C-alpha cells in the first residue's frame, strides 16, 4: 500500500525519486510551452489558454488518480500530505503571487524551466524569487500574525462544502471540460481565427472525457477497499464459515511463560481497558486500529503467530478476521475471555485440602506459569514495548 516512502522505499532513495519526478516535471513543462512567458501570460489576455488547459488537465488527472488509488486500496489517503489551510495567508499570499505572475510573467516552476533553456528573463525571475523569500524570512516577525491567522488544518474542500469527495470530483471535472470549451471559443475570437479540431483529435478528447466520467462513476457505485473488507468480514461472520483457531488460556499462558519471544499476544480492547489489566507481555492494538499501517508489521509476517484476546467473543473474532484479510500472519484467538484469564492466572487460589490430585496439578501449573510470567514482565519491562512504526510526517508543498 502506498505511499511507498518510508516503509518500502527509504528516505535516502526518496531523493532519487525526487530527481526522477523533477526530470519528468521539467520535461513536460518545457514541452507544453511553459518556458515562454508570452504563452504563460496569454491566459490573462485571452489569446492563449495553454496554462489553464495543462494545469486543469493535470489537476483533474491526478485528482481522479488519487481517488482511484484510495478506492482500490493501494494508497493510504490518510497519510498523504494535504496542504494545511490558513485562510488569510492563503488568500493574501495568492493575491501577491497573482501580481507577481502578471508583472513577471512566470511562476517559480516555470521560471526555472525558462532559465534552463536559456531565457534570461526566466533567470531574472528566479533571482527575484530569492529576494522575495529572503524578504519574507527577514520580515517574518512582522508577518507572523498574518501567517498563522485563521488556521483550519489540513481540510479537504469537499468536507468544507459538505459534499462527498466523488461529487466534488465530478463537479470539478465538469467545470474543467466546460472551461476547455469556452476558453477555446475565447481564444478564437481574440486571435480572430477559427481553428477547427480535426476529427481524430476530437474523438480522442471525447474518449478521454468519457473515461474520466466512467472512472468517477465506477468509484461512486462500487464499494471502496475498506467497505469491501468490512462486508467480507460481515459475510464470513454471517455464514459462520470461518474457522477460528482457538487456544485455551492454559496453552497461551504456557506459551507466554516459555516461548514469549515466539508469540505476539494482542489485546484488541480499548487502551483504558488494557491499562486496567492485560495479559502479561500483551500489546494493545484496539480493534479500530487494526487496519492502520503502523501495525502492519504484526500482520504482514509469517514468523510469529498472533494470539488475539478481548472480553467479548465477537470482537476477538472480528479482530482475527481483519488480521486475516490484511495480512498473512498465523492467527489464533483465546477461547476464554480476558477476565477468565485474569481469574486463572492473577494470584491463583489454592484449592481446598480435599481437592483431587488433578486440581492440585492445575493449581501448581498455574502458579508456576503465573510466577514465570511475572518475572518475564519484570525482566522485559523495557524491551517489550510494542513496535510502532513511527507515524509518518510527510512534508510537502513548497513550505
Amino acid at each position, binding site marked *: 500500500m502506498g505511499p511507498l516512502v518510508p516503509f518500502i522505499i527509504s528516505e535516502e532513495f526518496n531523493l532519487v525519486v525526487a530527481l526522477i519526478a*523533477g526530470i519528468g516535471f521539467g520535461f513536460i513543462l518545457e*514541452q507544453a510551452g511553459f518556458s515562454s512567458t508570452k504563452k504563460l501570460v496569454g491566459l490573462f*489576455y485571452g489569446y492563449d489558454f495553454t496554462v489553464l488547459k495543462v494545469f486543469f488537465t*493535470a489537476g483533474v488527472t491526478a*485528482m481522479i488518480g488519487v481517488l482511484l488509488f484510495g478506492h482500490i486500496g493501494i494508497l493510504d489517503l490518510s497519510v498523504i500530505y494535504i496542504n494545511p489551510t490558513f485562510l488569510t495567508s492563503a488568500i493574501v*499570499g495568492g493575491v501577491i503571487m497573482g501580481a507577481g505572475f502578471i508583472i513577471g510573467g512566470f511562476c517559480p516552476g516555470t521560471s526555472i524551466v525558462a532559465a534552463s533553456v536559456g531565457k534570461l528573463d526566466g533567470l531574472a525571475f528566479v533571482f527575484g524569487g530569492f529576494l522575495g523569500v529572503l524578504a519574507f524570512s527577514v520580515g517574518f516577525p512582522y508577518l507572523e500574525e498574518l501567517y498563522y491567522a485563521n488556521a483550519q488544518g489540513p481540510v479537504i474542500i469537499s468536507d468544507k462544502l459538505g459534499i462527498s469527495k466523488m461529487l466534488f470530483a465530478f463537479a470539478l471535472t465538469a467545470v474543467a471540460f466546460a472551461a476547455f470549451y469556452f476558453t477555446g471559443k475565447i481564444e478564437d475570437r481574440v486571435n480572430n481565427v477559427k481553428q477547427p479540431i480535426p476529427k481524430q483529435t476530437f474523438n480522442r478528447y471525447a474518449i478521454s472525457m468519457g473515461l474520466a466520467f466512467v472512472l468517477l462513476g465506477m468509484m461512486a457505485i462500487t464499494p471502496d477497499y475498506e467497505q469491501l473488507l468490512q462486508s467480507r468480514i460481515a459475510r464470513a461472520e454471517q455464514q459462520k464459515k470461518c474457522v477460528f483457531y482457538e487456544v485455551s488460556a492454559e496453552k497461551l499462558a504456557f506459551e507466554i511463560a516459555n516461548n514469549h519471544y515466539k508469540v505476539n499476544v494482542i489485546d484488541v480492547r480499548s487502551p483504558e481497558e488494557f491499562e486496567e489489566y492485560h495479559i502479561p507481555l500483551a500489546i494493545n492494538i484496539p480493534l479500530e486500529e487494526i487496519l492502520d499501517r503502523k501495525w502492519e508489521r504484526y500482520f504482514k509476517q509469517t514468523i510469529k503467530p498472533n494470539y488475539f484476546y478481548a472480553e467479548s467473543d465477537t470482537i476477538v473474532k472480528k479482530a482475527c478476521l481483519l488480521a486475516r484479510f490484511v495480512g498473512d500472519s498465523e492467527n489464533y484467538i483465546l477461547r476464554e475471555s480476558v477476565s477468565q484469564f485474569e481469574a486463572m492466572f492473577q494470584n491463583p487460589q489454592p484449592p481446598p485440602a480435599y481437592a483431587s490430585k488433578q486440581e492440585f496439578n492445575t493449581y501448581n501449573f498455574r502458579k508456576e506459569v503465573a510466577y514465570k510470567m511475572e518475572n518475564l514482565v519484570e525482566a522485559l519491562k523495557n524491551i517489550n514495548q510494542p513496535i510502532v512504526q513511527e507515524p509518518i510526517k510527510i512534508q510537502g508543498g513548497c513550505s
Partner: protein
Amino acid sequence: MKSKPYMNPYLAGVFLGLILLGTIYVTGRGLGASGAVKSFVANGIAEVAPEYTRQNSFISSYINDRPNGPLQDWLVIQVLGVIIGAFISGVLSNRLKLKLERGPRITNNTRIVAAIIGGLLFGFGSQLGRGCTSGSALSGMAVMSFGGIITMLAIFGSGYGLAYFFKKLWLK
C-alpha cells in the same frame, strides 16, 4: 533548424497529472518549486548569521526540521531534476537559446526589472501562501486541499484583476 511545435496541452496535462500521481503514490507528497528557493535562503541565513537565525522562528524551525542542509532536501533535488528535464526537452525540441522575451512596447531593461519584481512578489507570496502554483495550487488540487484550491483561485483571480493595469508590459 526550426524548433519543434509544443505538445498538445491536454496531452501534456495528462502526462503532468500522471507524474504528480506517481509522486504522490511513491512519496505521499506532491511536486513543488518555491520550497527549493526557501531551502537555500534559510540555510544561507543560518550559515551567515547563526545568532540571528535563533531569534527568527521562521528560519530556525525550518532548519530544525531539515538538519541535513539543502543538498539533501527533497524539493531541492526535485528542482535540480526540473532543470535537467527542461534542458533535455529544450535540446530535443531545438529551443535551447539565450533569449529575452518581452512585450513589443517595452525595452529589455524594463523586462528584466519587471521579471525581478515579479519574482520577488511571487517568492514573497509563496511563503505567505505556503506554496506556489506547483506546490500549493496544483498539488493541492490533486489531494483536494481546501487551502490549495483557495490559493489557486487567489493567484489566478488576482492575475486577471491586475491584467488590465499591466497591459503595457505585454500587448501591442
